[in-house]
């Protein structure tokens, strides 16, 4: 524990931890000091000077070291007469700070006047209008008149694309440098900088492509003025016209808290999403979201959305029918196939959807199967993160092992937080067959050949080297594992090996210890908890079923099975996928933005979200469909709202019984302080008022978990190239592709190989090729990357090439 310091700010006694800056100490006492360049998550630079305050310090006798006292016995406090920046000065015992006297107020007014000399007067058309720090502070403290002549204002570039997603208005920039520092310190992509100096300095990016970062959108939240704006929101709406709905990002297992801003579009008469903003949750995403979460939101408003139930008619065509008719066909069909029902569900469904589907399937004695390329959901329930965990608290004395994943690509916020933990002093061990961005933050790197991930985890602690020592000496250990280059079946072993390592070193069931799976989808963990289990022999299971309910999954499109048209097939979908096209019945469902519900994140944090948009067409939520179908089949189903279903989940599901709705909705005060009235302090990130969620308990907290055997069979490959599936953030999946703003950033090449291999095969970057795995053949475009091991082809998932695990491949150039 660090020492506490007591000081006086504006006659108020404030006690804070040693090392706290005056500005944060004031904030903790409810005293606002204006800022532009300071941000509590960034290094302070003292540049904008708006936070100047008067600081008095106690004095010591030079010889005795004793405090000098006033006549009345109180410590003498000396004021130097020079104002000091509250953002750079750490508190000291007995310090006296004045933030609100004539001198300080005059200084703030002067700095505002200086900033406004070069700031344009285009507030009426500025997207930041209504949430602009400069506007707010000028309104509160400004001079009210301009002594700098309008005609002499500096003119600079107005609509400069810094990259594909962010625009710069050079005139509006007040050179606070928050964006530059964010990119360097938080995102570790120092691709923004100032060019020139003095008043002429402006922000530039020289990366290729420009502003090459998955984090660029956050700079617009930090920008205290309208200098940086996002491409999707520029000139689209006024801040005060929009409604806000608290939501959870559905793109990856992190579960970032977001706020969805919507507006009734007067032209179309429809409510549409205007922008996605981060919502503070210091246990999950702090103040940040990645660009995929921010920009890939248009999939829900895609024109190809299904809006009516479809049933196959006598000519074999899918035609729209009423819900009543659809349920009738469904219940009759299911009744006549009672023996062989299989329900396949994906991790993008909510807990409520999954619970209802589970009840329905159980009622019909069917099999509940989870569509996941990664195993271990049972293990994370046993030895996942312990109660009270927060990666933000992980630092010296802790170790984090990240194995078989490219964390920034798969779960960007975890990358950010793990990297930050390493910077704070945690020991970071990264084990992966190729270099990833996380390597730069790692203390130790374990490189292994594809297929040897489990062996690597089993073996590395047995050695007497410094990596083994670093791991063994750690007080707390977190392991994250992913599915880089793996099939589902090899991930079973890896998950168990990671769990065993934690169990055998007693790093389970405790705060800041445990296992994290880098799931392919937002609610894969929730689906596992609701009883859906992945199967190694999924193709056979699907092919042997008589009736199928498939929700949130597309096994035909994913190449798991080819033909399900002979089955009695019900599909619940947003779009007419390849699987839906073979169905007897297609139920149009609500998108995650159109219904309330809950997700269980990869950390096993249950978080609630609300509907941001009204229902499209006749769509129903998956949980409603399952509920009604069950009812039609005479099953005893929970009927009602998502909340009522959640109450039932809490009542009946193991590990969920500790939850309460009240706890889920609890939104405690967080540090740093976020609020609309403190806009300049933390930026436009939304305050969390609807709940930070609850971390589920793990079984290891209650019972001892035993080690399980693993088989160390090595995958055997033939000669030649080995193709391995990897995950990339900007793939060509439905969720991403429908967001046009992201198109310039999407991957265009589906194969990535080492330049040496390329040379041998006579290929260059962007060569058109044909890749074949036995009989399966795909056309593809090649990209070169030195970090890919020789003899290996990386095949990004969701890019059109179906590959579920490592396989021998042949690549031939197409002429």
């Amino acid at each position, binding site marked *: 524990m660090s020492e506490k310091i007591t000081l006086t700010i504006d006659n108020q006694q404030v006690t804070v931890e040693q090392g706290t800056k005056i500005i944060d100490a004031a904030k903790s006492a409810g005293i606002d000091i204006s800022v532009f360049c300071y941000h509590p998550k960034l290094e302070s630079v003292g540049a904008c000077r708006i936070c100047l305050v008067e600081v008095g310090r106690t004095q010591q006798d030079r010889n005795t070291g004793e405090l000098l006292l006033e006549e009345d016995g109180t410590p003498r406090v000396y004021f130097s007469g020079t104002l000091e920046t509250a953002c750079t000065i750490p508190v000291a015992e007995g310090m006296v700070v004045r933030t609100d006297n004539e001198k300080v107020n005059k200084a703030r007014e002067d700095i505002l006047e200086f900033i406004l000399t070069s700031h344009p007067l285009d507030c009426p058309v500025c997207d930041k209008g209504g949430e602009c720090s400069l506007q707010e502070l000028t309104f509160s403290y400004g001079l009210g008149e301009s002594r700098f002549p309008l005609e002499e204002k500096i003119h600079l570039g107005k609509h400069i694309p810094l990259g594909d997603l962010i625009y710069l208005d050079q005139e509006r920039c007040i050179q606070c440098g928050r964006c530059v520092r964010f990119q360097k310190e938080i995102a570790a992509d120092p691709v923004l*900088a*100032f*060019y020139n*100096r003095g008043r002429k300095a402006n922000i*530039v990016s*020289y*990366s*290729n492509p420009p502003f090459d970062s998955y984090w660029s959108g956050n700079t617009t939240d930090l920008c205290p003025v309208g200098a940086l704006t996002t491409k999707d929101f520029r000139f689209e709406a006024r801040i005060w016209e929009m409604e806000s709905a608290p939501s959870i990002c559905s793109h990856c297992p992190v579960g970032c808290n977001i706020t969805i801003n919507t507006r009734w579009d007067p032209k179309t008469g429809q409510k549409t999403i205007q922008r996605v903003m981060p919502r503070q949750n210091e246990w999950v995403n702090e103040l940040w979201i990645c660009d995929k979460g921010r920009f890939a939101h248009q999939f829900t408003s895609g024109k190809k959305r299904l809006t009516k139930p479809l049933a196959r008619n006598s000519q074999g065509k899918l035609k729209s029918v009423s819900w009543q008719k659809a349920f009738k066909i469904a219940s009759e069909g299911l009744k006549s196939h009672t023996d062989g029902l299989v329900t396949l569900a994906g991790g993008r469904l909510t807990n409520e959807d999954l619970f209802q589907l589970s009840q329905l399937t159980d009622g019909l004695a069917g099999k509940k199967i989870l569509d996941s390329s990664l195993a271990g959901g049972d293990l994370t329930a046993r030895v996942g993160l312990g109660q009270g965990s927060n990666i933000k608290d992980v630092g010296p004395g802790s170790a984090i092992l990240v194995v078989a994943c490219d964390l920034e690509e798969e779960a960007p916020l975890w990358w950010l937080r793990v990297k930050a933990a390493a910077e704070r002093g945690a020991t970071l061990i990264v084990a992966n067959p190729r270099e990833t961005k996380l390597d730069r933050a790692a203390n130790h790197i374990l490189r292994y050949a594809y297929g040897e991930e489990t062996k690597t985890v089993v073996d590395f602690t047995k050695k007497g080297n410094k990596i083994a020592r670093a791991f063994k000496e750690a007080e707390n250990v977190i392991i994250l594992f992913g599915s880089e280059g793996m099939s589902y079946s090899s991930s079973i072993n890896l998950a168990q090996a990671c769990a065993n390592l934690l169990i055998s070193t007693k790093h389970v069931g405790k705060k800041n210890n445990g296992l994290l799976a880098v799931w392919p989808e937002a609610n894969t963990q929730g689906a596992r908890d609701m009883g859906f289990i992945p199967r190694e022999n999924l193709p056979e299971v699907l092919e042997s079923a008589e009736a199928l309910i498939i929700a949130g999954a597309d096994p035909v499109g994913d190449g798991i099975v080819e033909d399900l048209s002979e089955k009695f097939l019900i599909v619940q979908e947003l779009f007419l996928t390849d699987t839906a096209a073979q169905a007897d019945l297609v139920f149009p469902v609500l998108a995650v933005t159109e219904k309330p519900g809950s997700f269980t994140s990869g950390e096993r944090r249950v978080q609630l979200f609300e509907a941001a948009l009204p229902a499209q067409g006749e769509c129903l939520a998956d949980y409603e469909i399952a509920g009604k179908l069950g009812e039609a089949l005479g099953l005893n189903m929970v009927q009602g709202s998502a909340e009522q279903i959640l109450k039932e989940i809490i009542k009946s599901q193991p590990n969920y019984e500790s939850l309460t709705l009240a706890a889920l909705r609890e939104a405690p005060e967080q540090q740093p302080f976020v609020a609309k009235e403190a806009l300049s302090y933390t930026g436009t990130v939304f305050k969390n008022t609807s709940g930070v969620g609850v971390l589920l308990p793990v079984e290891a907290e209650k019972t001892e978990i035993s080690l399980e055997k693993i088989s160390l069979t090595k995958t055997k490959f033939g000669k030649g190239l080995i193709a391995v599936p990897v995950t990339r953030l900007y793939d060509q999946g439905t969720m991403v592709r429908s967001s046009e703003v992201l198109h310039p950033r999407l991957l265009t090449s589906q194969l990535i190989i080492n330049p040496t291999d390329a040379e041998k095969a006579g290929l260059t970057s962007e060569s058109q090729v044909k890749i074949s795995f036995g009989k399966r053949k795909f056309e593809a475009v090649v990209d070169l990357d030195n970090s890919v091991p020789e003899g290996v082809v990386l095949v990004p998932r969701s890019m059109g090439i179906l590959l579920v695990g490592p396989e021998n491949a042949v690549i031939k150039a197409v002429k």
Partner: protein
Amino acid sequence: MAKYQKEIQKILAKYPPDQKRSAVMPLLFLAQRKEGFVRKQALSEISQILDLQETEVATLVGFYTLFHDHQAGTYRIQVCTDLCCALRGSEDFLAVLCEALEIKPGETTQDGLVTVEEVKCLAACDKAPMYQVQVKDGISYHENCSVDNTLGMIQEWREDSNGKEEGAI
């Protein structure tokens, strides 16, 4: 940059191995040696040598006045017109010199040989009018100058460069 391997190693050797970013300014001077300004290609090469982002290299070209991001004359005559030099007639010197060369400060003579620029104090306040001449691979001071001797010097450069061109044919 590849052809300067030896010099690059010599520069890097000056700084602790984990602080090679310190070499960025010397490397930028090296990059200017060929054409008198830094091309984007050089930014990329320097960033690779030093493990930096190109943006981190480019920002220095923008900050420091002796780095240039575009082509100018072979000889950059940089005349100090700061307070002390102006007190000794450097502003007139600049005006007359530019007139004689038929250019404005900041411009390049038609033959592309000379660019005349106005600069701030060069620490030669007692010897004004004075200027420095920046060429691709160095900087030299010229003090107590007159327009006549400056024009004479330019004439010599001109003859030199013509000679070279003829020699090249």
